[in-house]
């Protein structure tokens, strides 16, 4: 064991550890200074849906957003959906999108809105900006005109 602490070994350790520490310091200094991760926008948003187009029109809708950096996943469900529906929907998020330049974009299907199940497959497109606990955005259902909405975040999630 004593031979482990000879001059050659200690020099090697000194050089190796100093190099790694300097590298790590450099990397973290650069990262902290220049890299900006997107703000946390994940959460459960309750949308006042009375002015929404087509089959989306109802009392409330709930938009759940799961966030992994700029990548977003989510689903839209009725405000009074049973808990099991929420769990099933979370297993297989039907919306996906990205968060870029402070704006979130989500698109995909809405299988959990019962009134939208009839006829052709319904696709929605959501764009918006999160300011504090409020999401202000626009929603487009298939080719219907875009409608604006405001949603409040009820719970946040990573």
């Amino acid at each position, binding site marked *: 064991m004593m031979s482990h602490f000879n001059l050659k070994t200690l020099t090697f350790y000194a050089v*190796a550890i100093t190099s790694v520490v300097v590298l790590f310091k450099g990397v973290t200094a650069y990262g902290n200074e220049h890299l900006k991760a997107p703000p946390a926008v994940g959460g459960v948003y309750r949308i006042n849906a009375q002015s929404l187009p087509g089959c989306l029109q109802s009392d409330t809708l709930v938009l759940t957003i799961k966030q992994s*950096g700029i*990548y977003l996943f989510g689903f839209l469900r009725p405000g009074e959906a049973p808990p099991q529906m929420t769990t099933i929907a979370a297993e297989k998020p039907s919306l996906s999108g990205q968060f870029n330049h402070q704006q979130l974009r989500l698109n995909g299907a809405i299988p959990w809105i019962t009134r939208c199940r009839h006829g052709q497959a319904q696709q929605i497109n959501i764009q918006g900006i999160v300011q504090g606990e409020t999401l202000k955005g626009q929603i487009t259902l298939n080719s219907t005109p875009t409608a604006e909405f405001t949603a409040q975040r009820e719970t946040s999630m990573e």
Partner: protein
Amino acid sequence: MHTVVLVLIQVLIIIGLSRIMGLGCRVFKQPLVIGEMIAGIVLGPSLLGLVAPTLATTLFPTETFPFLNMLSQVGLIFFMFLIGLELDSKYLKSNLDIAILTSHVSILVPFSLGSILALLLYPLISNASVAFTAFALFLGAAMSITAFPVLARIITENNLQGTRLGTLALTCAAVDDVTAWCLLALAIAVTRTNSILGAVPTILQSLVYIGFMVTVVRWFLENLSSQYNRTGRLSQLVLAGIYMGVVASALITELIGIHLIFGAFLLGAVMPKNPGLVREIAQKTEDFVLTFLLPIFFAYSGLRTQIGLLNRPELWLLCASVVGVAIVSKYFATYAAARVFGIEHREASALGWLMNTRGLTELIVLNIGLSLGVISPILFTMLVIMALVTTVMTAPLLEWTYPKHLNKLDVVQPEPQVESGGEAIEPTYRVLVPVANPSTQKGLLQLAVTIAGNDLQSVAVHPLSLIQLEEDYMFQSTPAEADRLIQERRLQLEALIQTLEPAETRFYVHPIVRIANDVARATAELVQLDRTNLILVGWHRPAFSSNRLGGRVGQILSTAPVDVAVFVDRGEDRLESILVPYAANIHDDLALELALRLLVNGERRSLTVLGVVQGNEDFRELSYEFRSLMEHLPSHVRDRIDIQVIQSPTPMQVVVEASSLVDLTIAGTSRTWGIERQTLGRYTDELAIECCSSLLITRRYAQVTSHLASVLSIPNVSLSEDESGFGA
């Protein structure tokens, strides 16, 4: 449904599927941990949630997650205690300088490259609530992990624990383990305080606690160990005290601000490595922890893994970069360091692959990272894939770079060799004797020695004892414990060898004791490596079922690429008269060759070759080769052979009656004698039941193998199917 009932149903499903997947992985020579990891992923949103979301949420609703989490945390605490418990300073014995330096290089390089990779990943898959420093530290720690417990099992399974590579890898992994846990503790402290400076108090408290553990607690445990030596047993009261210590230590480290697992690990690590005490604690703890609680941890990890989140090509590219950096940095850092310290290319390369094993340890780190929010669900999924890939690839890459037939070259303590005039002699005739129970198979080994003969220079008999390890993480699977089991079995075999007669034959009997998960496959591999001529396997089950030669004997018969003889011992010590029921097939040829070999090796032995002609068949002359062989036999051998041909519609009865007059009957696995190579046929092994003498059932594999060449100096002494026997 009541939550407790639902959780219990979940546990049933988890344990069942883990076992099934684990068995599946065994087929592909993968460690059990892979099966358990896959079982967890299958039950989660990546598969079950994708194909049957309703079923998935019915079986695994989110309200049960806290219960599963609690069970998995308890499992994890005790698993970490077991890991600490098996971390023995005796692993730090081989090339310590090289191992410590190689290990540290293999941590520093992946850690550095992981931090650099964080520059790419942070803006894409993290969010602003996580400090870059914490993110980079965690990613670096995740990249630099080596799973000591999984690696130790891979080394044991490949019988590498006695080789230079095995001891070097174990030392490296042990050092790596401790260093990586320290790194993880630092990463957790930084994450919780969001800065390195803020983590300083936590680090100082941790150092004080470690100091307390290695001095005061260690002193207390030394006393406990001394008391154990006096009493020789571990009472429930003492065990309860140890378990309370585990939980208390876990709680203290959690309060300090690192994590529960470190306290449990520390207590295991400072436990005196009194072999008896450690074994008893491990054996009393591991069954429940490893079979019940640990699969729940894997399932809980799987429930949080969502491969479906990687739904864009760029995300798969990022995933590939994570996997690539992890593999390349670990491999090349280890390889380069080992090469610099003088380890040869092949070993350095194998060491690089071994150190890539991340398995379970990586999952522990990732779950902590996800719970703390420092890694996002996407990064968690990528790192789980990385852990799977790096663990799956280890065994095949190890086999590729360090094939089994080369293992023997690196054995630290080589087995004694037969030498003559300073030169090692390679035996020309080898008999391999799988011995399941040394205390009951003396007759089998004695027969092997009798077949081998008295020429000490040219023959070798290898009693083979394969120790099958049931579980991946069991204490008995640790290299040190496996070594102890091997030594124990070797001593039993040595004692058996000392009973063999004549005494000089003991000189060429060299036992082989190894660890093997698949006994039949390991036997087949060994046969090829050792160029064995014959496997002699015992079969002493008293009650025969319809599947006579099933089980391991049946598997060896089906898979071994060499001639096999199955011995049914009737406890007859004398071996002077031999009967060979002979028909025209290659298996009977083998029977005849072995009988002739016995005849040559024993001057007082006699042989009866019995041909049975059924129904109205005419008796035909012996073939040219058969007659030629007889003519080439020395007269003192030929004179002791009696050839009889009997006409009878029931050959079996004739053979059974004839067997009552001899000491040993040797019969090929032919339908004529009611014995088939495969055991599930419509023919029964009547002979095995009815035969009055001991019975040797032969199955020929290679027609070119000769069992007579080494005892008779005549050319072309082997018989073959189309040219031998009665008729043709």
